[in-house]
Every structure is written in structure tokens, then in C-alpha cells.
């Protein structure tokens, strides 16, 4: 089994986001980056599939992003047990069209002939949720999204897809397949100290976006990034701790009448 996992760095969920000067991206100077949530589940699932398959295999972690910070997320994946990395160098301005991004990954990965591609169901920053499906389509793979369980079979993979409102469905995909992973299907591991040491010796192949993009241009693009003006209708309760608690009790008792 040769498995590729796409992992991406996104600003941590507690980051204070400020729009950058060109209104095209956020000001990265004050940001902490972390592995996109569903990607960390995708990585864990890839490692579990490899460990369970009798013939063993290889897990290759793939990330596109700037050279200053992206190696960190690749090393993290290698420390958890991925075998090698591919880093697609991308300098700002970053691509934001999922079709073009998937095309870049397709050029990078096509010759490697992966059996399985795993990616997150969507990224916390762009949130289009399209990369894994379009990439699968470009590489002529079967695709499935929102996957909550996997069972590798002979020449195929059976996956449980999440549907709306607590419904699910099992579907079987012939290999090669590209599936996008929903959070919660496993418990991502922490890297061990040995893993962290070992990661330093693992190979990270560097490719450049400029070479892979091969003259293609986006189908859609960002015009302007901004803070959406909110309709604040929330009545804010303020004061020191005791005042806040008193007012809350009062609201619960006299306004909402649940005490």
C-alpha cells in the first residue's frame, strides 16, 4: 500500500487574525500555525491502514506552503510515523483556487502511482473542501468525502461516509482512491521521542509550485479579504466575576425563567 496524505498548515484556532495590507491574505507575522484538524485525522488513518496491512507499505506526507514554516508540519507527520515527505514550495501570493491547487498536487503526485490518497475534508482557512475530490478526479481515482471509518480490502477500500443528521452509508471504492477524512474517526497519536529523533533522518523531497503549475491559471480568485460586519444583537453581561454571576442568575431566573 502506497499512501499519500495531504496535510496543510493553518492558523491555530485561537489565533487573532488580522487582514494583511493587500487585503489578499492574513498578516502572518503574529500567527501560530498548526496542522489542519481533519488532516491530522487523515494522517492517523493512513498510519493505521499501513500498520494493519500485512504487506506493509509507505505513508508519504505532502504539503504545499512557504519554506519558512511548512517543514515543521511535515516533520511533525514524519515524527508520528510517516515514511517520507514531499514539500511543494510556494511563495506568496498563495493560490486560492481549489481546482488549480488540486492540479498542482496532481502534477506532483501522478508519477508516484499511489494506491490511496487521504486528505482532510476541508481546511480551516480556505474551507472549500474540494482539493481531495478534484485531485482524485485528475488522477482518475474513485473518490469519497466525509469519511468516518475505513476497511481495506483486496483491491478496494470500504468506507463509512457521514450523511446529514446522524445518517451514514458504507461505500466501496476500487483502488486507487482519494478519500477525504472527517474529524473524529480515530484518536491521532502524539509523536514519541524516538519518532521525533528518527524524523530528522527521513527524506523530504522539495518541488516547486512554479514548475508544477505549468502555465495553468485559476478558475476563480479572491478579490478582497475583510472582516464581515456583524449584526450584534447579543446583550453583553459585564463586570467582575461576582457581578457577572449575579447578573447571569438574574437573567436565567427573571428573563428566561429556567430557574
Amino acid at each position, binding site marked *: 500500500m502506497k499512501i499519500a496524505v495531504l496535510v496543510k498548515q493553518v492558523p491555530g484556532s485561537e489565533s487573532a487574525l488580522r487582514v494583511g495590507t493587500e487585503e489578499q491574505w492574513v498578516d502572518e507575522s503574529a500567527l501560530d500555525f498548526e496542522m489542519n484538524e481533519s488532516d491530522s485525522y487523515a494522517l492517523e488513518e493512513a498510519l493505521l491502514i499501513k500498520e494493519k496491512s500485512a504487506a506493509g507499505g509507505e505513508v508519504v506526507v505532502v504539503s504545499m506552503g512557504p519554506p519558512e514554516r511548512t517543514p515543521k508540519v511535515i516533520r511533525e507527520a514524519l515524527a508520528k510515523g510517516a515514511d517520507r515527505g514531499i514539500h511543494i514550495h510556494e511563495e506568496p501570493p498563495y493560490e486560492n483556487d481549489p*481546482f488549480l491547487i488540486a492540479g498542482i498536487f496532481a502534477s506532483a503526485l501522478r508519477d508516484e502511482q499511489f494506491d490511496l490518497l487521504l486528505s482532510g475534508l476541508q481546511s480551516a482557512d*480556505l474551507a472549500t473542501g474540494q482539493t481531495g475530490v478534484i485531485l482524485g478526479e485528475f488522477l482518475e481515482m474513485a473518490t469519497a468525502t466525509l469519511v468516518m471509518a475505513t476497511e481495506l480490502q483486496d483491491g478496494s477500500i470500504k468506507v463509512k461516509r457521514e450523511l446529514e443528521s446522524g445518517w451514514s452509508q458504507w461505500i466501496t471504492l476500487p483502488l486507487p482512491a482519494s478519500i477525504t477524512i472527517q474529524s*473524529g474517526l480515530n484518536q491521532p497519536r502524539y509523536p514519541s521521542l524516538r519518532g521525533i529523533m528518527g524524523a530528522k533522518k527521513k527524506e523530504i523531497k522539495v518541488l516547486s509550485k512554479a514548475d508544477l503549475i505549468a502555465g495553468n491559471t485559476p478558475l476563480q480568485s479572491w478579490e478582497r479579504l475583510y*472582516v464581515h460586519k456583524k449584526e450584534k444583537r447579543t446583550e*453583553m453581561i459585564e463586570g467582575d466575576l461576582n457581578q457577572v454571576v449575579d447578573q447571569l442568575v438574574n437573567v436565567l431566573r427573571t428573563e428566561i425563567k429556567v430557574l
Partner: protein
Amino acid sequence: MDILVVLENRNGALHRMSLEAIAAAQSLARDLNLTVAALAWGPQAKDLAREAATKRVDEVLSLEHELLEKYSSDGYAEAIKQVIEQEAPRYVLVGHTYMVRDYFPKVSARIRKPFVGDVVAYRIEDGSPVFTRQVFNAKLVVDVAPQVAPPVLVSFQSATFQADAVEAGTAPVRDITVALEAEQIKTQSEPPFQEAAGDVDLSSAEVIVSVGRGIGKEENIPLAGELAEAMGAELGSSRPVVDAGWLPSSRQVGSSGQSVAPKLYFALGISGAIQHVVGMKGSKNVVAINKDPEAPIFEIADYGVVGDLLEIVPKLTEAIKEQS
């Protein structure tokens, strides 16, 4: 036609988000003076067509095919690709449902046209629509414009348009066909099923104390549990809390969990992501505690406290116990 609305079936009737997509199409048609067709297809296409024909659209297209009786991303993407080629719409509109997430990117890949997904607003600029999407966990928004000739595929986020805003009318129904082969469908599917319901039915709870990732760690869950107990409330949660295994999945509120409508929804450390909000926006009252004043939950809460729930919640539990 100019605008094609692709409908989705939910138990033999139009999916609420398909009605919202029709409302979106009617709005765009008004702004740009365009015609609208609605596509009824898949199992029960005839029923959907009958329902769609009672809306103010120019035409309803009805498409039946044995390979569309059961959903598959390959079959559905191929069918929509062919309909787009035959009918040449400029805009293809849908609701941003789980099914659309699954097959619309495929349509985009196959026709090499943009799919602008999960749109929350549009406006007309120089005679063309610019679409607004939420990015960075809905803390920022971005205006997106297609860069190529039509068509453009667009999905709208839940509640961007109102289902009850759809204008009524009478539309003619036209049967259309596509050419599909079984070999084009790579996957095999089993019937959908509902996960075991679990121990709680949150939908009938009067008061729900709901826990988000802001609770920090599993050891803190009892803080919320004690508050719930003092208030006679059920415990609910956001997805990350269930993902981490801190509470069972039967407690999850949201698009993939339960939909609730209590008298009070007390959100502790929940940011207010759309997939959570769709499950609790029917609540009569929402009170939120969150340490981030910019958290989207403060757009929908009736009362809010900016602060550390780990400090406030134990004090509040104590105060409520003293009251009773």
C-alpha cells in the same frame, strides 16, 4: 435558460436547502434579468418536479435514469455535466449539502469551471455577481470572482436565503435525458442507515448546557455536568468534544448530530461554527460564555459573557444551588 437550480430530494420532497437555492435563483434572476430552470432528478424525480412546478421558475426539467435511482458521486457528476452541456446555463445553483460537497467538486473538475462553494452573500458588480465566502473559521470573509467564461457552479450556505421567501408560480415541466453507463460508476454503495440513537434525546430537552472545545480538557467536563445538574438540564456538546471522546456522540448538536430547540441553550466555550449553529438555532434563548469577544456565537446569542468559563461556571453553579 440562464440559471439552473439543481434540486435535492429529502424523503420525497424538496430539501429545505433546495428551496433556499430556488430563492437564491429568483433573487439573482431579478437582479440580472435572467431566466431560471429547476432540475428535478433522481429517485422520485416526478414528485420533485411536481413540487418545483409550483414555484416561480421559467421551467422545470425532469430527469429520470435507472443509474440515478441510487446516489453515486460518479453518476451524479456525470449526469449534471451532461445537463450543463445540453442546457448551457450561465449559473448552476445548489444548497451546500453533504451530497453537494461530495459530487460538485467532481463536476467542476470534469467541466473545468469554477465551483464557488458555501457562499453566504452575493452582490452585483459591473453586471456580474461577486460571491462572498467565509474563511478562517468564519472569522473573515472573502469576495470571490470567477475568472473564466460561464458557467459557474455556486452553492449557498444554509439559511443564506429563506425557504419561505420562495415565490410561488406555475412552471411547465420538460423531460430530459442523459446517457449513463454502469461502468462510469466506480463505487458501490450500501443503503444509508442511522447510527444507534444512543441514550439521550436532546430534541425534547427544556434546557441544554452545551460544552465546546473551550472546556480545555476531559477533566473539566464535570464542571459543565454540575451546572447542568443544578439547572435540571441535559448536557450537549460540539463536535470536537465528541471527536476527542470526552462525551458520547449522542450528545453532539449540529449538522451531523442532533437538532435541538430548547427554551435555553447555554453554550460554554463554543465558537459558533455554522455546522454547530444549524443544530441549535431554533433555541428560544441562547446564552454564551466565550473568552473571545469576536467569536461568531456572539452574533446569535441573546446574552453573552466574555470570560473564562473555567472561572465563571463553578461560581454560577454554586450561586444557582444557593437559590434553590
